[in-house]
């Protein structure tokens, strides 16, 4: 239970090839920051002139904003998280649609996670965030390409 608030650490992210049967997730390690995702429906007017002076609207198509992840970089593509980061870069080049999963803990002990998943493709990588006197960072942008945005009930992590 997280009434009373909790901070945002403990998030997990991963992806898997969209196939049948579903492949195992590849976890994206050294995750520094996850930005997004926003779900916003178009605001569609359905106002008609009547005795009421209030405009009326309904929610139209839903826009899912891009998922942006910042990762502590490992430029060595042959070792550890460098292998995963090289694979993420390759997904940009291929344009392949894969299944993404973001999990966040539902309590302070991080005993269970709530998962958010969708299909999408990598549309941006920033491999050269290299401040002279700070950590190297790998930045990744994923665009939504699915018919639904899945929100699981809290449970054990799948990553």
């Amino acid at each position, binding site marked *: 239970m997280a009434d009373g608030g909790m901070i945002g*650490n*403990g*998030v*997990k992210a991963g992806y898997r090839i969209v196939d049948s049967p579903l492949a195992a997730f590849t976890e994206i390690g*050294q*995750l*520094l920051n996850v930005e997004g995702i926003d779900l916003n429906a178009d605001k569609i007017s359905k106002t008609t002139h009547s005795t009421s002076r209030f405009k009326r609207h309904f929610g139209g198509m839903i826009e899912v904003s891009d998922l942006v992840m910042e990762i502590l970089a490992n430029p060595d593509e042959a070792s550890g998280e460098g292998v995963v980061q090289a694979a993420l870069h390759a997904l940009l080049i291929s344009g392949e649609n894969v299944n993404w999963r973001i999990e966040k803990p539902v309590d302070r002990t991080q005993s269970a996670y709530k998962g958010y998943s969708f299909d999408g493709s990598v549309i941006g990588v920033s491999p050269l965030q290299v401040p002279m*006197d700070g*950590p190297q960072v790998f930045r990744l942008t994923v665009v939504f390409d699915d018919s639904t945005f899945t929100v699981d009930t809290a449970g054990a992590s799948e990553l």
Partner: protein
Amino acid sequence: MEIEKAVFLVLSGNSSLTALCPADRIYPDGEIQNVELPTIKHFAVSDRSLYEHQGRVELRQSEFYQVSVYASTMLEVRAIAEAVIAALSGLNLVGSPEEGITGFHRSTARLGYDEDVRACGLGLDFEFWYSN
């Protein structure tokens, strides 16, 4: 490796520096009253851990690391200070542990003259990035 031990290895292993201040006069903090001049004191003022979502990462930052140089004359202090800056600046410092240390000299401040010991001093502030 603890950053203080690593910095000592770098300083004590630098022949240009130890020609000016012997390695057995390089101390991790402490007073200078009973120490032969010239002398160098060094200590981490602050040390910062970095975190990713699943916990602490190996990369560490010593945001403020002070190296204080004391000698009988300011001329001597400045010469030793320059040797310290040269030894502790740059990528993968010579003499540092295998995982390497990167050092940045950030500032130099004049320390008050110690009348008891008759020593001039300069305080050198460094920033170090290292693995633990």
